[in-house]
């Protein structure tokens, strides 16, 4: 790790102010991506601004048909939260299979989506559930938030404060783990909104990061069942390929994981 200056912010405003005073600052949430990258000397921020102790970024709220998870909430607190388990059990499940216990005790939902790793789990949940990302400046719908590999709509110094999920009628998430990294080799989140709208998002599959899967959405809209997807063909064009999964294999996984997610959603 290169030398850096560490700051612990006690409020979002203080964090923004610290950011403005630094030449090349980075916000630190759970540190599950940023710190390993810094240790590898692949990132060298002049300043690291720790958001982990900001009280206003902690907690989960269920109000009517909206589940709001504050950005600094760690995965363990999400997966064990009674409101999450009641309102959207698929999010509790997704969080319980995210990383390993050490990651789940440190990592946060805000950190995950701000980083937008193409194999992260939470972007798929946000996209499929039609969530809204709240920042210190504005609200951004998930469809506008994720902009490709490690890229989001966030501006310099903008801080995610919370994510709001409309409570769906049904939702499910299944993934195939990458054998080495244990990220999602491919994961699929399926959701049927109370309005009847069906949205399906896949992570780990596309070269452009998390993506909607219109062909599966159409099939499920017509018939919400695993067998409805039997006839769908997913193209391997534009999908990721590496030593653990060819593009064709990932295309297959999009379909198979979607079927299993529908089964899990009930």
């Amino acid at each position, binding site marked *: *790790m290169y030398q850096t200056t560490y700051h612990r912010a006690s409020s979002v405003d203080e964090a923004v102010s610290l950011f403005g005073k630094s030449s090349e600052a980075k916000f630190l949430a759970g540190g599950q991506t940023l710190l390993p990258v810094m240790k590898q000397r692949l990132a060298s921020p002049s300043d690291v601004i720790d958001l982990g102790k900001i009280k206003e970024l902690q907690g989960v709220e269920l109000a009517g048909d909206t589940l709001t998870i504050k950005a600094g909430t760690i995965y363990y607190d999400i997966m064990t939260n009674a409101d999450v388990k009641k309102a959207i059990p698929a999010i509790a499940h997704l969080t319980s299979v995210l990383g390993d216990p050490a990651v789940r005790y440190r990592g946060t939902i805000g950190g995950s989506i701000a980083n937008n790793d193409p194999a992260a789990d939470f972007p798929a949940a946000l996209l499929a559930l039609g969530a809204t990302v709240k920042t210190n400046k504005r609200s951004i719908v998930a469809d506008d938030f994720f902009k490709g590999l490690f890229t989001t709509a966030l501006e310099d110094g903008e801080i995610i404060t919370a994510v709001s999920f409309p409570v769906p009628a049904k939702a499910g998430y299944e993934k195939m783990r990458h054998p080495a990294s244990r990220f999602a080799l491919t994961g699929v989140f399926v959701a049927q909104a109370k309005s009847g709208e069906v949205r399906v998002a896949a992570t780990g599959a596309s070269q452009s990061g998390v993506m909607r899967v219109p062909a599966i959405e159409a099939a499920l809209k017509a018939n919400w069942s695993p067998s409805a997807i039997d006839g769908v063909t997913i193209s391997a064009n534009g999908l990721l390929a590496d030593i653990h*999964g060819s593009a*064709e294999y990932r295309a297959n996984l999009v379909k198979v994981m979607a079927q299993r997610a529908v089964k899990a959603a009930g």
Partner: protein
Amino acid sequence: MGVEGIGARVVRKEDKRFITGKGRYVDDIKLTGMTHAHFVRSPHAHAKVKGIDSSAALKMPGVVAVLTGQQIVDDKVGNLICGWAITSKDGSPMKMGAWPAMAPETVRFVGQAVAVVIAESKNLARDAAEAVVVNYEELPAVADVHAAIKSGAPQLHPEAPGNQVYDWVIGDEGATDAAFAKAANVVKLDVTNNRLAPNAMEPRAAIADYDAAEEHFTLYTTSQNPHVARLVLSAFYNIAPEHKLRVIAPDVGGGFGSKIFIYPEEMVALWASKKVGRPVKWTGDRTEAFLTDAHGRDHVTHAEMAFDANNKITGLKVKTYANFGAYMSLFSSSVPTYLYATLLSGQYNIPAIHAEVVGVYTNTTPVDAYRGAGRPEASYLIERLMETAARQLKVDPAQLRRTNFITQFPHQTPVIMAYDTGDFNASLDAAMKAIDYAGFAGRKAKAKADGKLRGIGVSCYIEACGIAPSKAVGSLGAGVGLWESAEVRVNPVGTIEILTGSHSHGQGHETTFCQLVAERLGVPISQVSIVHGDTDKVQFGMGTYGSRSAAVGLTAILKAMEKMESKAKKIAAHALEASEADIVIENGEFKVTGTDKAIALPMVALAAYTAHNLPDGMEPGLKESAFYDPTNFTFPAGTYICELEVDPGTGKTSFVNFVAADDFGRLINPMIVEGQVHGGLVQGIGQALLEHAIYDANGQPVTASFMDYAMPRADDVPSFNLSHTTTLCPGNPLGIKGCGEAGAIGASAAVINAITDAIGKNNLEMPATPDRVWRTIHAA
């Protein structure tokens, strides 16, 4: 056996310090005035070093020195050696290029060091290393064996035209051709044995400390064999004569073969310590481990097996290309030859065998011994061939093996090895019973109804361990003897120290070796300590690898114990006024048999050291040493059977059951043996399903971190069902065969045989990743 004697499941003495964080590893050691080294490593697989500009680095804070490959050559530090001479079939010696500790002119793999920065801290050294400017002229590179031997391929070493190190043969080609000419059936198979990165939990590390007044070096290092390190550093690398070089290998966190070898980093640390006049520490990180620890396996093989009309094997032909990487590591030449081809008879009566092995240079990390070393490659090949044959001949795979088992011992194979004992039917029977082989068809049908593809795979392995009879290996080209030494010191108060040339880096010697003493003297193991890993304390030793510590190292201790006991009995007989022949040792006492007369061990020891009343002419003291050179290899063998399910939607494999029936001869501590088998099986399963050190066509490593290189985790493997079918080894007095490598040798074939059974297609390479299995299932 007694509660702590041979055969007892004694809890490991060393674990208290390991699980409470009190282990003392090289990186835990801090010396006064110590500096830190960071290497400047090549980012290119093949390049000329046109110049190194250290000027900016030398101005960085805390930098003590920047040293280069040219300086180490100028100072006449020797090139790295390969310690086993192999002769090609045309009679020529193997062809090797020079391997300097840091490259002065040419780099030949990514990660090869060209310079080293010595600084006041690890981070300052690393910072400065980034400021060293190396001017490279890139050269074409080659990573794949088949590409490397093609005409026009990039050439690594002028000494080895065509990148060929050797073309070696074993066996009787004429007899084998004749067997094939008469064969009723011939089975052919192409297999790749995937390259693995060893990944010991503790990365390699070294601290070198030069004392200018005494002209003496001390080296703390992560070694499986510190005496061999001292020998090589002294005799070949010109570091210092042996009496001026002390090598200490303290607690070492795993080796698996990768810490047998003396690496450039230790040589550079020693040389640099003298240059800068201060201790120099280097601790590798995980990336450096992936780039520079000797890799394992990496064979490409075509094999054919001939059968008569009764399904008896009549001949075996093998041609293997072994990828050695960019340089010949210390024992690399022996791995695909005498540690591989000599085991090609497996557990079977094969009248004629012929094997040819071509050793090839490529622009990749050097390859050497890794848990099993040659024997996993042999066992995998033979067991994949047997399974393929059973499918082709439409016979039960277990029955085909039974039809061909060797049942009479000793058995001379056509490839040097003479198996001393074994009972292959017994281990096959035990494993088949444990897994309910007969009931498999019913379970497969039930799994099919649930949408899963279920398979069963058998692997009957044999290995040559207890390495090794010195005269035999010497005649085959080894540069060292492979005996072991030991010393028994009984202190004046009756406590006992065992000095051994074996080295424990996870094996539990501090417990098992004490159990032998407990067995013979009847004293608690708390009164015994094991001293190892320090060339100033232990006179000599060949170290730990090749499943040799119990079969060879413990036998040396036994020989020293017998000498000590003989002297102690004389002292006891003198004190008890009895005949020496009537003295027996029981429960820590020397007794006159048939009487109640006895003298306790501490009194005998005290008598030996006070020397007030010893038999006439006896020297004082109670300390004996012995060297033990085995008369043959030992031959652990067994059967592994694996039952698993494949998910046709994802290609993912899930284990249902994994049974192991091993014959290791006598077990000293069954609990520790089980741990060794568990670890070995996991490594074998890792090779079969997950692990693969991959290079792209230009020699760039693709798997240089755990984000890409898939190590097996606890949830990747099943709970194992272990048993033992024992035949005692006749070659050593304790009847021990060794257990350290078996799991890694036998497991991978069982897994691949089971997956290919499940999916109904025979050709599947390792690692059988879900993607690869899925594509194989759905291939036309």
